[in-house]
């Protein structure tokens, strides 16, 4: 990926963007195609997915069979480099020593950020998800509705390419006809779960994922995305033609050298760079937003990690898209006379109401799946089917002890083996010789994992502030996390365990271990699902929110937050598609204001 060093940077840019992931990538794409000069700061190194993605490497070609280590938390061939639960030189702290009150913070330090390894699950928020408080009195309503974002969801889906089906389900929006790519066929685990779901009243349908099941239509989509902009249409068409459709092998978590799935480095950044309007500075660890005397942001102060020196970029507007936690860190560290408690923090709400997704998993062993005839089950390198939340009616009728929904992700186990045992140890314990091999073959692929991914309601006890003592390698105060689940999340996790048990039993299977019916024992730790959102909520009252409906901070009108930090709720729908839709919408707003001479 072409980059520049700070010495090559312009005196001033139109817009400085911090972060190169979903939000920063979308922002750079939309702005540069409209002719706006941007500089992007990325805290990690440059990364070339075409050359660096380990596409067909097998487990036995990696150290330790590719299994996870503290250096590579998701295994050796996972796309993430220089990132993980712990990032060298950049600690973070916990306010409590109780595990259930701690937040695990996943960070990426590479071009493209977390988009390199994510699950590519691309679900639209529905109408309820933007107005949750109006429905059940909890949390916050967004200042925008589904109608305000709908067209942007469509545009993002057309740009990145999303497979799936329109099922017409409640609060699970359909896309316009012709927008989604065809969903892949169900695999054994998907179809088995679907059949069991129909017995116990849980719908199982094709999921939406940002993977191309056919090449993008480069002849017609660019004109839909950029009407009246011929140059943009050509650049986007050229970029689309460089992406190939999925060839049905290798896990998407490794990234994709042929561009069959969405990652910022193959979809957003190449066309943005092709405009000539984008400069990217890697290894740039943002410290604070710099302010002018006029009360406007004038740029970003950062550490050039290659020299350890403080450097600056100047711009007429600043976009933070660094991830919720990092954006909060940058704002709280940007202290000035005007903003003694951190930038854009007159409401005192920067860092407040951080949310993750409720996670709870259960695995079953299914005798019917023992000794199934060997066949290729790789598929699209991630989920094919899922269960959208199906009990809105019961919740509305007051029959449930938690207020929001979860979706179920399905994990088949006929995956490429190696590293860890492909069959849980207790099934092979005490065996050796041919008998061991026979039993491994018998049980391989006979397990199905079900995962709850549910909505967390924002609460007063889940937030981040600056640690008063601890600083990173460059002397920058670090994040300190505070965390607490409410009963809504704990009860949801319990409900998921019960549901999964029913589904596994409906498959004729047995639950692995014991289903845990106590929410606090089964819920995964805060942060573990890596859906950190919130911390700079959008709202329609400047006293009670940090951003307005345009992701624009109330206090500094040329400062925009385009990661998930403005999220006022965290629906069970994975946040990435919404981050991109809102970033595109925000970019259009910036372009419109620039057209009026307001930049």
């Amino acid at each position: 990926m072409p980059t520049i060093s700070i010495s090559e940077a312009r005196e001033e840019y139109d817009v400085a963007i911090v972060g190169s992931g979903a939000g920063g990538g979308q922002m750079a794409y939309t702005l540069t195609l409209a002719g706006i000069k941007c500089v992007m700061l990325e805290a990690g190194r440059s990364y070339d997915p075409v050359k660096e993605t380990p596409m067909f490497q097998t487990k036995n070609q990696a150290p330790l069979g590719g299994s996870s280590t503290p250096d590579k938390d998701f295994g050796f061939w996972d796309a993430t480099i220089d990132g993980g639960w712990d990032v060298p030189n950049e600690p973070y702290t916990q306010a409590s020593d109780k595990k259930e009150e701690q937040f695990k913070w996943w960070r990426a330090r590479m071009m493209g950020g977390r988009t390199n390894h994510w699950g590519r699950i691309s679900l639209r928020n529905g109408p309820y998800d933007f107005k949750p408080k109006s429905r059940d009195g909890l949390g916050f309503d967004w200042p925008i509705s589904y109608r305000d974002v709908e067209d942007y969801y469509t545009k993002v889906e057309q740009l990145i390419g999303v497979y799936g089906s329109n099922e017409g389900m409640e609060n699970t929006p359909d896309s316009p006809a012709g927008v989604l790519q065809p969903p892949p066929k169900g695999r054994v685990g998907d179809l088995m779960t679907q059949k069991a779901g129909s017995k116990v009243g849980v719908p199982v349908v094709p999921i939406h994922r940002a993977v191309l099941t056919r090449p993008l239509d480069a002849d017609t989509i660019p004109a839909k995305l950029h009407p009246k902009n011929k140059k943009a249409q050509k650049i986007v068409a050229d970029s689309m033609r460089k992406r190939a459709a999925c060839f049905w092998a290798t896990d998407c978590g490794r990234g994709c050298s042929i561009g069959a799935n969405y990652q910022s480095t193959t979809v957003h950044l190449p066309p943005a760079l092709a405009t000539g309007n984008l400069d990217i500075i890697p290894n740039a660890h943002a410290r604070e937003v710099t302010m002018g005397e006029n009360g406007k942001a004038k740029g970003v102060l950062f550490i050039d990690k290659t020299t350890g020196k403080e450097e600056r970029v100047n711009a007429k507007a600043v976009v933070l898209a660094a991830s919720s936690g990092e954006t909060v860190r940058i704002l709280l560290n940007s202290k000035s006379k005007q903003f003694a408690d951190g930038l854009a923090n007159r409401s005192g709400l920067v860092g407040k109401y951080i949310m993750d997704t409720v996670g709870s998993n259960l695995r079953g062993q299914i005798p019917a799946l023992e000794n199934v005839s060997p066949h290729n089950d790789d598929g699209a390198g991630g989920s094919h089917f899922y269960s959208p939340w199906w009990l809105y009616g019961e919740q509305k009728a007051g029959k449930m002890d938690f207020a929001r929904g979860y979706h179920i992700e399905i994990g088949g186990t006929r995956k490429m083996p190696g590293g860890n045992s492909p069959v849980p140890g207790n099934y092979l314990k005490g065996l050796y010789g041919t008998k061991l091999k026979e039993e491994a073959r018998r049980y391989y692929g006979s397990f199905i994992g079900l995962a709850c991914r549910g909505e967390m309601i924002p609460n007063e006890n889940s937030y981040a502030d600056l640690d008063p003592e601890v600083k990173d390698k460059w002397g920058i105060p670090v994040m300190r996390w505070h965390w607490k689940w409410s009963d809504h999340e704990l009860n949801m996790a319990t409900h998921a365990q019960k549901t999964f048990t029913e589904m596994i039993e409906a498959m004729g299977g047995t639950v692995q271990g014991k289903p845990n019916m106590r929410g606090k024992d089964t819920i995964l730790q805060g942060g573990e699902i890596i859906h950190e959102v919130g911390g700079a909520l959008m709202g329609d009252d400047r006293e009670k929110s940090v951003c307005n409906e345009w992701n624009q901070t109330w206090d500094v009108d040329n400062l925009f937050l385009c990661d998930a930090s403005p999220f006022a709720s965290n629906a069970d729908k994975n946040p990435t598609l919404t981050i991109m839709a809102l970033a595109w919408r925000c970019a259009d707003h910036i372009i419109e204001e620039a057209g009026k001479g307001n930049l």
Partner: protein
Amino acid sequence: MDSETNNSRLPRRTVLQWFAAAAAAGEASALQGFAQSAAPATTGYGTDPNMAKIYNPGDVWPLTFSKAEKNAAVALADVILPADDLGPAASTVRVPDYLDEWISAPYPKQQKDREAVLPGLKWIDEESNSRFQKSFADLSLTEQQTICDDLCREKQPDPEWRKAAAFFHSFSTICIGAYFGTPEGWKAIGYVGNTPSGIFTGPPQEVLDELGLEQTVKD
């Protein structure tokens, strides 16, 4: 991808170098006695390893096994995963080298296994010597299996045997992870994939029939 698979097989020269290295390490570790199971002072592959590369045991951190340990590991791995109709023996697909790499790694999980595997290999030779006056590798298959049968007994009242049985389980788990990660192991376990294809047709009809399932995503 055949070409890449072939790359994973070691040239004979490299294998010989390893044996030389293992032999040299063996001399040193014999002097250290029990200290050999202490953590090796190496770092891991770091957070930004070269991923456009194929790795062999010994590439990123030095290996540990002495000659005696290696002999015992080869023999035990081959009893656990022998050559049969389902595939070749563990040692022919480098499982012992993988074991050595595993227990030599500087990470906590692997260090814990090291604490079980190295004393365990020593134990199994001592047990073989006390029963049959030979090291484990020199026993007949039947003799080796006698010891393994004893290790696989569900109840182990004796603390020494409990420890030995735990070693056997750890050792065996590492072998399983290694063996089924090879193309030969894929065949043995029934994994088919990692092959590019223009179209994904889902499970074959005979598999759907076998399971009483219907493909619900239609063309």
